[in-house]
């Protein structure tokens, strides 16, 4: 049987080591994207640069949901707003983009027209390198509070079935490289849900929750900020990667809830996938500044998650 060793990770590649060993070490607490010119963001993968601007984002968020007198696909409870902190954090790190809140949003903005003819993701969710949806969801789906202002005869449900209709980073648009789902259960790890739903997109990394989480107002913003943290002591540099930041801040405060954060990485090869999984840093553009080749290997992925249990309301739990 062919055996594979998990690729060893180079932990010293993001190093701001001083030239003079006697020089006082530089402690880079608030590194920004502009500080990374001398870094190799491909981490040895030799991927060609992304042809577009990697420092772009598209955020859509639903906070108001009807409790009755609406299609069941729209029913839920209101949620706290989290996208504004994410927007501010991304802009602090040099990103530009758009933030659509409430009724101005619609599932149509995450539907690829190659799956359903009226899809608009090429002008919305798949038009920027970082894609965020915040609202409600479930295993394999996202939920809006209303259908939104859409052409007659198009969207008829507040529920977006990801496997059938969402194709980020491929087909029309083909720009997205990283996505956050601030929703319940969308990144549920059971029943091959990740591969069968989020894996239908062709992007580098996606984060969400295995269960129904409590998401504080500033969680997404804090996550983004954390990925800019550099640890430099003159000899070894340990970055705060998307993986470590999400495993940490993706959880709720002790005892408040039982969040199970998930980070899911895909790629065209196991090497590309593993390197991205253990080195990508959103705030600095590392992991999204290079091409993400297609087609991706359907048999290669890396998942990190904290198993704090599932929620019975999730489909697969």
């Amino acid at each position: 049987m062919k055996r594979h060793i998990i690729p060893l990770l180079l932990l010293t590649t993001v190093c701001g080591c001083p030239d003079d060993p006697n020089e006082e070490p530089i402690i880079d607490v608030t590194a920004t994207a502009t500080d990374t010119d001398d870094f190799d963001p491909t981490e040895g993968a030799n991927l060609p640069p992304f042809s577009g601007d990697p420092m772009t984002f598209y955020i859509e968020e639903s906070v108001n949901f009807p409790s009755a007198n609406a299609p069941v696909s729209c029913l839920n409870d209101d949620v706290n707003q989290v996208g504004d902190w994410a927007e501010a954090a991304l802009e602090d790190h040099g990103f530009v983009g758009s933030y659509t809140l409430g009724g101005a949003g619609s599932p149509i903005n995450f539907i690829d027209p190659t799956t359903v003819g009226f899809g608009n993701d090429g002008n919305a969710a798949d038009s920027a390198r970082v894609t965020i949806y915040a609202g409600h969801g479930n295993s394999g789906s996202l939920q809006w509070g209303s259908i939104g202002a859409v052409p007659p005869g198009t969207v008829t449900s507040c529920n977006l079935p990801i496997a059938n209709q969402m194709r980020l980073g491929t087909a029309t648009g083909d720009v997205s490289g990283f996505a956050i789902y601030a929703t319940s259960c969308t990144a549920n790890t059971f029943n091959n849900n990740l591969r069968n739903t989020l894996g239908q997109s062709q992007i580098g990394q996606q984060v969400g929750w295995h269960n129904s989480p409590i998401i504080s107002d500033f969680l997404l913003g804090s996550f983004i900020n954390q990925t800019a943290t550099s640890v430099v002591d003159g000899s070894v540099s340990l970055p705060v990667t998307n993986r470590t930041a999400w495993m940490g801040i993706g959880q709720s405060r002790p005892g408040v809830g039982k969040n199970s954060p998930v980070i899911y990485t895909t790629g065209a090869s196991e090497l590309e996938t593993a390197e991205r999984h253990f080195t990508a840093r959103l705030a600095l553009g590392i992991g999204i500044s290079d091409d993400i080749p297609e087609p991706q290997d359907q048999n290669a992925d890396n998942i990190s998650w904290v198993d704090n249990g599932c929620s019975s309301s999730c489909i697969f739990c």
Partner: protein
Amino acid sequence: MFTQALLLILLTTPHSSTALEQATWPSEKAAVLTSQVSQYDVVRHGRSVKELTTRATLALSMFTEDPPDPSRLERWARESLSDDPAKRLQLHPFPQLHPGLVVMYQPLYDDLFIMELESLHRPPPVKLSKDPVSPETGVGENAAFDVMKSTLDKLSAKGLIKGTHSVASAQLGLWKERSRAEGLSAEWVMEYQWTMNRIIDGVEFIDAGVRIGVHHEGHLSSLRITDVKVSKVPNSSLPVTVDLPKARSLLLGEESTAHPKATVHVDQERLAVMLDPELSGQTLTPGILFNYSLRFEDTAANVVNASRQILTSVEVTESNAVRRVFPSH
């Protein structure tokens, strides 16, 4: 006033038996083992730079014997307490202590969080295989549990946590890693995480908690501590009048009124108090704290969608007040 109005609605609006039948409940049930409860004044900390540096020094000493550079620590504390969220919400490195130590402090919840990244970056020497995966690749859960207990004792001795924390009821979470290639896979546990809250008179204080992360190699690799100031209100002893079945019924009553087409799925129920996240202090009566989610399902349209998790407490005293604490996603 809102709570009182809500209470009246609850007591006069019976929920359907269907809601009760469709609800799901945790296997571990909250126990109200006392006939009397007290009220508590719960107040958030407003730490000074000096207090925070002292607390952080003690917490960092859990990971290394070397003291942190005082000027570096003071700079960190000032940034953590600043009004600039870009500084406040960021992990800060202390590389002169250890190449992987990062620290974050969220003043709103007195939330101190430390990770040791060097070992958390390091995968164990597992191979991809067709064989069933074995998460126990390091010292194993039992040995990790002993490290957790030892850590808890040290935290208490250093004054970083106060009062009693029940090891027996600690919630275990597993940081897992999974790698897959060419039909082969590997899965392993990176870190064992135990979460506990302070217990006073049998009541859990949700705003005073600790999460201890033990690396699969058997050492402390992360720590998260929250705290509040707690004092018992003098002469506040109240009789317990609500038992668990009644508290559950009141919970379902509220949800069947607010969301008549949802089913309730409870993950956790505890005798507890929790501050309103927006408030800096409250006088609180213990209640059954439900941690649950809602499920909206339309079988005809094949939509099984939208769940969320919130916390709602039902006071165990004769007021029976129902208080929604933390609605979320």
